C-alpha cells in the first residue's frame, strides 16, 4: 500500500527512513483490578477503548534530508518519532531505518540525578550506543560544548535545569548517528546556548546527516528544514517544502 503523495513510491538505496502504511492504535484500559473488571463485565461495559494515533501513514526520508514534522498537539508527531526510534512498534505497517539513529526525543532520559556529570556522560553515551573508547575520546568535546566544566564532578541533582539540558544535549549531538530525531529540544537553555545548538544542528545537516525535526516553532522549521510534513489526527495532510507545509498547517488552524 503506497500513498500517492509520497514522492519516491518505493524505498531506494538512499532511503534513510521508510515508513510504510503505519497505523498505531493505543488501547486505553480503564482498569486493571479484578474487582473492577468483574463489575464492568456484569454491566456489559467495554473495558477499554482505543484510538488511532497514526492512521496509514506513509513517509520516506532520503539520506541528507531535513524533514520537519508539523502538527498540533495530539496529531501523532511524537508517536511517529517513537516508532522511528524503535521505542514503540506499530500496530500495522512497517518502519525501517538505515544506519544508526539517535533520538533527541527526551534529552536526559538516561540521566540519573545521583550520579555525577562525568558518570552521566558515560552512562548516557553508552545508552545512546557509543563505545567506551569513543566516549573517552569525545569526553572533552562534550564537556566543552556543554560549558559546565566546573561542575562535571558534581552530582546532577545539584544542577540547574539549564545545566542539565546542556550536558544532555552535548552528549546526544556527539553520538555521531546517521539519523537524528529531534523533538522540541531546540528550546534548550538560554539564547546563546540555543544559538549554539542550532549551529550544531546546521553543521550536522551540512555533513549530510538525516534529520527529522518536531517543533512548534514554525519559523525555525522554515529556516532549518528542506521539507515539511503536516500531520493532523494521525494522517499526513501535506508533504511538501517547508514554507508550504507551514502555510498548510496555519490554514488548518
Amino acid at each position, binding site marked *: 500500500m503506497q500513498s500517492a503523495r509520497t514522492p519516491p513510491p518505493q524505498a531506494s538505496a538512499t532511503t534513510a527512513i521508510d515508513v510504510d502504511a503505519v497505523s498505531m492504535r493505543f488501547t486505553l484500559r480503564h482498569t486493571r483490578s479484578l474487582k473492577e473488571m468483574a463489575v464492568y463485565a456484569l454491566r456489559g461495559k467495554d473495558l477499554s477503548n482505543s484510538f488511532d494515533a497514526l492512521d496509514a501513514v506513509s513517509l520516506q526520508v532520503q539520506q541528507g534530508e531535513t524533514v520537519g514534522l508539523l502538527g498540533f498537539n495530539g496529531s501523532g508527531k511524537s508517536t511517529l518519532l517513537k516508532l522511528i526510534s524503535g521505542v*514503540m512498534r506499530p500496530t500495522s505497517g512497517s*518502519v525501517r531505518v538505515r544506519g544508526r539513529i539517535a533520538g533527541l526525543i527526551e534529552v536526559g532520559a538516561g540521566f540519573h540525578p545521583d550520579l555525577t556529570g562525568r558518570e552521566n556522560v558515560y552512562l548516557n553515551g553508552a545508552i545512546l550506543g557509543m563505545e567506551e573508547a569513543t566516549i573517552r575520546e569525545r569526553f572533552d568535546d562534550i564537556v566543552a560544548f556543554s560549558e559546565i566544566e566546573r561542575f562535571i564532578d558534581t552530582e546532577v541533582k545539584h544542577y540547574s535545569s539549564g545545566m542539565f539540558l546542556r550536558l544532555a544535549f552535548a552528549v546526544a549531538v556527539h553520538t555521531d548517528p546517521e539519523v537524528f530525531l529531534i523533538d522540541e529540544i531546540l528550546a534548550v537553555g538560554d539564547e546563546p546556548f540555543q544559538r549554539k545548538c542550532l549551529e550544531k544542528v546546521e553543521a550536522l545537516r551540512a555533513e549530510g546527516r538525516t534529520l527529522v525535526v518536531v517543533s512548534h516553532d514554525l519559523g525555525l522549521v522554515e529556516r532549518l528544514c528542506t521539507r515539511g510534513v503536516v500531520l493532523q489526527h494521525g494522517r499526513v495532510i501535506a508533504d511538501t517544502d517547508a514554507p508550504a507545509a507551514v502555510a498548510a498547517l496555519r490554514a488548518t488552524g
Partner: protein
Amino acid sequence: MTAPPAAAAGDLVVPGRGAGLLDVARRRFLLSLLVRKELRVRYRASVLGLAWSYVKPGVQYLVYYLALGIFLQLGREIPDFAVYLFSGMIVVNLFSEALGNATRAVVNNADLVKKIYLPRELFPVASVWVAIVHFAPQLLVLLVGAAIAGWRPQLLPLLGAVAGFVIVVTLATGLGLLFSALNAVFRDLENLVDLLLMVAVWLSPVLYSWRQVAAVPFVAENSWLLTLYQLNPVTVAVELFHWAFWFPAAQNQPEGSRVGPEVLPPDLLWHAGAGLVLAAVALAVGQAAFRRVEGRFAQEL
C-alpha cells in the same frame, strides 16, 4: 548537499528489534555501567554503603542459627550446622535477590524504556549482576568459615558448586526476564514473586536436611514426591553447595560425630544435570516471552 556519511550504507532495518541476550553480550560496557549505577543508587546517602550487603545476611544468619540451630536443636541432627546453614543460605539469597530485583527491573527503568530504544534485556540482566556482586563477599565469608570448621577444597565438589551457581544464575535470569516483562503489564507479578521466593527459601533444604523430608511418612510412601522435591533447581544448587563446602568439613569431625556420604542426597549429579537443563529451559522461555511482550512496554508503562 554533501555525500551522506559512508557508514550510512547499511540495509534498511526495522528499529527496536534487537537480538535479545546476544545484544546484552555485545553491550557489556553499558551493562557494567548499569550495574555500577544500580549499586551507587542503592547505597546513596548511606553511611554503611556496600557494607549493608554484609550486615543484612549477617543478621539473617544469626537469627536462623539461634532459632533453628540452638532453640530447635537442629545442630544435633546436622553436624557443623553453622556451615550447613550458611552454605545453603547464600545460594537462596543469591536467587531471591536476583529474581526479586530482575522482576522489578523493567518497571523501575520505565523512564528509559519509554524514551530511548536499547536492548531491554539489559535491565533484568543488570539486576542479576548486582545480586552476584552481593553474593561474592558472602561466598568469601563462607570459605573462611568452612576452612575454620575443617574444610579442605576438593576438585569435583568445587565443580559441583560452580554448576550450582550456574543453575541459580541462569534460572534467575530466565524467570527474571519472564516476570519483568509480565510485571510491566500486570504489577501483581511483583507480589506474586515475593511469595514465590518465600516458598523457595523454605522448600529448599537450607534450614533442615533432605533426610528430614524423606523421613516424613507421606513422602516415604510416595517416593516420587521426594524426587520432585529434589529436582527443584534451587534445591539442587543448595545441595551442590552442601557437597562442596559443608560435607568436607563435616567429614573432618572427630570420631563419633563423623558423617558418611549418606548425608548427601543420592543421584546428586543426575539432579545437577537435570537442574542445568531446567535452568536452560527457563532461560529460553523467559527470553521468548520477553520478546513477545517487549513491544508493549512503551505503551504499558
